[in-house]
């Protein structure tokens, strides 16, 4: 985690502002910094809040100590007697309320307690607190209040914003809970307040339509009370593209083959960092003082654009990573060799100035070489290759019978259920559904191999639309018309966004790509009709004189916010960055998403509704 947030700076729109406004809000919530306070954390919030407010900042705000829930009778704890305020930062989950109640079971009178819900209050939580005699605004027998920290969005990098709703997919497709939509609208509203009205709105899918409709309403809200910021700011974002996750679930379930994507698949990137087995890394990478006993915890590595080398390689196909790393290694050693060429004092001085930067690169190189090796160990395993081949076959062939036996083989080998179901779902999605007989066979197999409770899993997957009986062949048509399958991709010097899956271009990214062509989406109206859900093409009135006057050019590209409703993967982010990085590109992309997903986390979120399901990793 970086202390400065400098990785947010330098993009086409300054996402530091988003971070800054969150910090101001938090400062406001914590109140007088001269009052000693303790933050009591809901474990699941440490990562997200930490992204906008790192520890030194919290200390500045008067935070004296931090503890995690569950904790009992916190006011009795040693060293907390002179602390006047206890601030609970929690998600609005009923289960956490019990922890809060336990934590303040026997409070001293002089203490005050504040429960801060992130990002929103929940009426049920408040009710439960009240039932336990904890009422907002009470002053006796001790002071207690309830607040809200509207951390609607987290800027992850200079071009990525996440709403951090891990349940977004199941909320939208399983529980029909519209919270992610509401939060999307609020976030886009906030972005408009900061960066001006977005003149054009595009969208695909039912949820995209809802968001677009609500955006119109919030525009009025923005006007209310004369908050003229949005009205008066010259639009910095030229268009927004709202993409319902259902536009391309195949991409969501496919194994990502970019460097960052694979780190996420294998090690899981949470709030910009991933954990790796520590013993694999050399000491200079770990940055632990020598002679100190090696810590047993895994090594947490921050992965953002702040690290130059990572920024340059994260979006590359993993096959090219070896080459990139060895090229880097040569560059670095060549740079170190330069010291022999330094003849004058001036040259020597220049060399010394570059030194810290070079040292940093050296550490980066060592670190990423290790990570790449860790990944390679797994990608070389036959099990991994089999999955990749199976996925490829499922996506490419129109009737992939060969996959059936592979899937059954996985069941027979009692492979983890999420792997089996992920493949079944992929097959169903890639074929616009499964033949009734095959579906029945799979279902029975799952029950017989993994147990009756997976009737629940199957039910939920069907409800979410991940498995269904075949009705049409629409995906095959979409696949062909949008040229999603690209043979012979060059993983080293990609000519198409399909490189992120070694031959498959996400439909989401293709739609974004088409928008930049002459006539935009009008050109592909027939294809758009084949993708379920309405198509949105609208305009928002901007303040007079704020209209974009010139056509975007590669030198002065337009900025487009691509918003994934229901989550997007690092591979998709990579693909969009690839689009923006092409020489002829006239568009830069800011990526918004309800959350970052991969096939594994997506399956997990659905299976989490099945009792006793625990992911075997």
């Amino acid at each position: 985690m970086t202390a400065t947030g400098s990785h947010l700076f330098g993009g086409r729109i300054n996402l530091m502002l988003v971070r800054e406004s969150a910090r101001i809000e938090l400062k406001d919530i914590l109140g007088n910094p001269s009052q000693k306070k303790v933050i009591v954390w809901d474990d699941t919030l440490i990562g997200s809040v930490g992204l906008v407010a790192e520890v030194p900042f919290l200390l500045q705000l008067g935070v004296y100590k931090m503890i995690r829930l569950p904790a009992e009778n916190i006011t009795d704890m040693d060293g907390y007697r002179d602390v006047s305020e206890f601030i609970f930062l929690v998600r609005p989950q009923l289960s956490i309320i019990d922890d809060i109640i336990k934590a303040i079971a026997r409070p001293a009178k002089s203490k005050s307690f504040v429960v801060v819900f992130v990002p929103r209050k929940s009426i049920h939580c408040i009710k439960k607190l009240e039932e336990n005699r904890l009422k907002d605004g009470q002053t006796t027998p001790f002071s207690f209040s309830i607040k809200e920290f509207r951390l609607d969005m987290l800027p992850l990098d200079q071009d990525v914003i996440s709403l951090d709703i891990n349940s977004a997919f199941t909320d939208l497709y399983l529980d029909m809970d519209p919270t992610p939509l509401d939060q999307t609208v609020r976030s886009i509203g906030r972005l408009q307040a900061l960066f001006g009205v977005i003149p054009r709105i595009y969208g695909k899918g039912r949820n995209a339509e809802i968001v677009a409709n609500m955006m119109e309403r919030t525009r009025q809200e923005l006007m209310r009370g004369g908050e003229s910021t949005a009205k008066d700011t010259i639009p910095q974002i030229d268009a927004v593209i709202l993409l319902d996750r259902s536009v391309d679930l195949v991409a969501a379930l496919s194994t990502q083959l970019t460097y960052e994507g694979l780190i996420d698949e294998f090690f899981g990137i949470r709030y910009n960092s991933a954990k790796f087995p520590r013993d694999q890394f050399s000491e200079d990478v770990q940055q632990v003082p020598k002679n100190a006993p090696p810590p047993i915890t895994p090594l947490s590595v921050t992965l953002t654009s702040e690290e130059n080398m990572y920024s340059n390689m994260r979006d590359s196909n993993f096959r090219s990573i070896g080459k990139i790393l060895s090229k880097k290694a040569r560059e670095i050693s060549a740079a170190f060799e330069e010291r022999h060429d330094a003849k004058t004092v001036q040259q020597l001085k220049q060399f010394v100035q570059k030194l810290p930067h070079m040292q940093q690169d050296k550490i980066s190189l060592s670190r990423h070489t290790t990570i790449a090796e860790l990944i390679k160990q797994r990608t070389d395993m036959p099990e991994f290759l089999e999955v990749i081949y199976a996925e490829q076959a499922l996506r490419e062939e129109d009737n992939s019978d060969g996959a059936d036996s592979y899937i059954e083989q996985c069941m027979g080998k009692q492979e983890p259920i999420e792997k089996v179901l992920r493949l079944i779902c992929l097959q169903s999605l890639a074929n616009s559904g499964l033949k009734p007989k095959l579906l029945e066979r799979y279902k029975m197999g799952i029950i017989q191999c993994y147990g009756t409770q997976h009737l629940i899993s199957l039910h939920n997957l069907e409800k979410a639309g991940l498995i269904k009986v075949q009705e049409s062949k629409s995906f095959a048509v979409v696949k062909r018309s949008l040229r999603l399958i690209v043979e012979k991709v060059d993983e080293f010097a990609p000519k198409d966004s399909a490189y992120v899956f070694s031959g498959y271009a996400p439909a989401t990214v293709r739609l974004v790509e088409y928008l930049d062509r002459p006539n935009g989406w009008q050109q592909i109206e027939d294809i758009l009709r084949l993708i379920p859900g309405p198509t949105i093409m609208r305009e928002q009135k901007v303040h007079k004189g704020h209209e974009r006057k010139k056509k975007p050019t590669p030198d002065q590209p337009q900025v487009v916010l691509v918003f994934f409703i229901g989550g997007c993967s690092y591979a998709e982010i990579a693909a969009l960055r690839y689009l923006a990085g092409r020489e002829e590109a006239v568009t830069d992309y800011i990526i918004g998403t309800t959350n970052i997903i991969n096939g594994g986390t997506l399956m997990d979120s659905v299976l989490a509704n099945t009792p006793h399901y625990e992911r075997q990793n």
Partner: protein
Amino acid sequence: MADGFDVGEILSGANLDWTPLGEGFAKCYMNYDELEWKVDLANQKAVVAPYGGSIAVLTKHEGWSDITTYTLAAKKIGFIKLEGGKIVGMGWTASEDLVLIYDDGTMVVYTVHGVMKFQRLLAREIRDHRVAQVRFFHSIEGFAGFAVMTFDYHFYVVADSDRDKDDIRVKTLAELPSGTLNTCPSCWAVMPSGKNVGVIAVVEGQVYLMQSFETVPISVACKDSNRQWTSIAISLSGKAAALIDKTGYIWAGSSDFKSQEVEFDIQSSSNVLQMEWSGNDFIVLLYEKFIFLKGLAKHWCKLPSKGPCVLAAEIDGVRLVTNTTCEFIHRVPKSSLSVLKVASLQPGAILNDAYKEYIGDESHKADEYIRYIKDKLPDAVLQCISAASEEFEPKIQQALLMSANFGKGFLGPDVSDDIITAFVETARNLRVLNFVRDPAIGIPITYRQFSRLSPGVLVDRLTNHRQYPVALEICNYLKLPSDVGEVKVLTQWALHKVRDKTVSDTKVANMILTRFKSCGIVISYADIARVARQEDRRTLAAQLLEHEVLVEDQVQMLLEMDEADKALDKATSSWDAQLVYEVLERMKGSQRTSDYMKVFNHRPTAAALYKKYCKENDSEGLVNLCHQESDFVGAGIHLLSQAYRVAKPKEEKDEKERKEAKERFLVPRQELVKQAYKEFTDGQLSFHMKVIEDQDRLHREQTQLKEDHKFDTVGLTLFSTIMECVRRSQFKVADNLKKKFAMPDTLFWWAKLRALASVANFEEIERFSKQKKSPIGYEPFVEVCLQKNRFTEANKYIPRCPPNKRCRLYMITGDWHKAAETAASERNIAALDEMLQRQGRNDAALVDYIKQIKMKLGAQ
């Protein structure tokens, strides 16, 4: 150059109404004369609101009384008719509401228009002992309140009288010392110091400061400590105090009474009617026959009586209202002195002179003056600007600003931003002030008061006086942010319209909507609707509420109007889950369960959200809702997940305990599964039913197995059960299970093969492989052998694998010759090369063999 008035003459005459008061001057400016009202202050009591606010005049009649409110220009604003009750105190709040205090401790608050806002009892003790006296005060910090003395000489303070009825805080002050408890104070005043308001009282010549927790005697720094003080005045800032005794001896000094600034004997034994501080500068004493101004040190002056009148202290002067005039007494400010005093040598005065010469066509003289003050020109300009701001007369203001502008011209491009800002702001603010000082508006506010009050509050006050157009004009002119300006004014205007019941609902709604739509301002329609509802105009409220853009507010208001159904619709259409839950909670509290469930008809989002909540918290509610929707699969799946959620027992050590624990968990689980099965049956869900039936049958089979063969598979899946049977060589049983549950061949073969491999039963594997053609091929056979490092066993199955796989498999088992053979038959040169590379060093025979093959192939 403005026509019609002689600037020189104006500037020269600007100090004519100054009255010398020691080193300085006092000035009494006539804001309004010939007031057209029928008020006689000799018989009627009047109180003036601070900052040039309204005046309330109380008239007593036989058995009843009335109060009329006016602007200071005597324009009538409101009228209140009062029946009965003895009014002890009357005064204003900071936001210009009128407060009446009755002797029984009742506090009644009216708007300036005479509409009663609320009434309340201050405190029971006050009622019990009756109110003897009330003193109103307003502080320099901008809040106002009052203090009450009861007949038992206890004091109570309300520090902020602008609060709502139930938020009014009555603070009891500490008692007077016991010896003086039953003595009436000879005089007392409120001591406003921050929020900690106290009272200064004089009892038997002793001064006390009373606050919440203590009463402290205060010794007055006065030569004669036995004076019988009859009147006391504390300045608005709370910094200065003044006392007078019945002989006319005045003491004045700091409000801690420690330093004396004035010691003076006025030599008049007639009663002083009112004593007020003008700022912290001098004291104004009102006598029946004259008005006495007592400055600091020795200076004083006496003004002739103006007839019956009332004084009101302001932060920078004293307002004096008579039966026919409204005047303002204040010290001539420093900047005015600098610029306008006769023979002043201050740069501002000289700049003024220069300007006078300049317009009198004596420009060489003007040049001379300018040269003389060249270095101090910025000061001169600022002095003139400041002096202009202090003036009431527009002509003098204008003349002084012209002087300043003239001076500014000489500063050239170096003129500082401060000067430009001061000039522009002063000119702009003066325009506003002149506007509101006009008798039509009647707010004779000074520049300093305006600065203290802030433009926003002035706009509030105008709005309060229903001067909407003026208020709007000022908002626009001063470019106030629209949330403190335009929006606020228009909202108040709309509220006024709503309260005016002479106009029909539809008309009012149209009027309001057109007005706001036309200027593109979005306001809180919910707030207006709330008032409409209070005024019992439900239709109007509903009409307005339709236009509210903030759904939260809209929903809240609909709930207040008992329109829960509508509120739920609005909440769901906003997609805001928390809002939906809030409405649902409210409905749940107020309706019977059966009625409550009906709200989900045709409201899929609300139903979905309710279900999501129920999943964790209200199982029964969820099942009920599913039934209502005929969603049997939903209900069944939920019950099933409840069943599997029943916690598995911990491993007990004791055999018997383990068994019991298992039953404890199995029984409720089975019960729930049964319920789920019923749902599936009702929904005719054959697949789901079959799964449950199978589970039941499997359970029975497993129990049987346990009895017959003494191994426990209860709770395992069919697949694992079969594997377990195979491991224990119960092949028949396994075959039977496969048949009974119609397990696909492929899965069965996997189960059996893996189970056999796990117990290393390779003979049986071989037998199994020959049973019939493997539905899973023979690679898995090779694989399981390889896993156990049984290469010879593995080799047995390679010939039955697909030809293109064999070569590689042989390479794995290490049978290189076979591998080479296979490669040869496939003409796979690449594979041969690989073999050479891998085995070339340690297997000469192989190398030869491969070379031979390669030659053969090459030869062909």
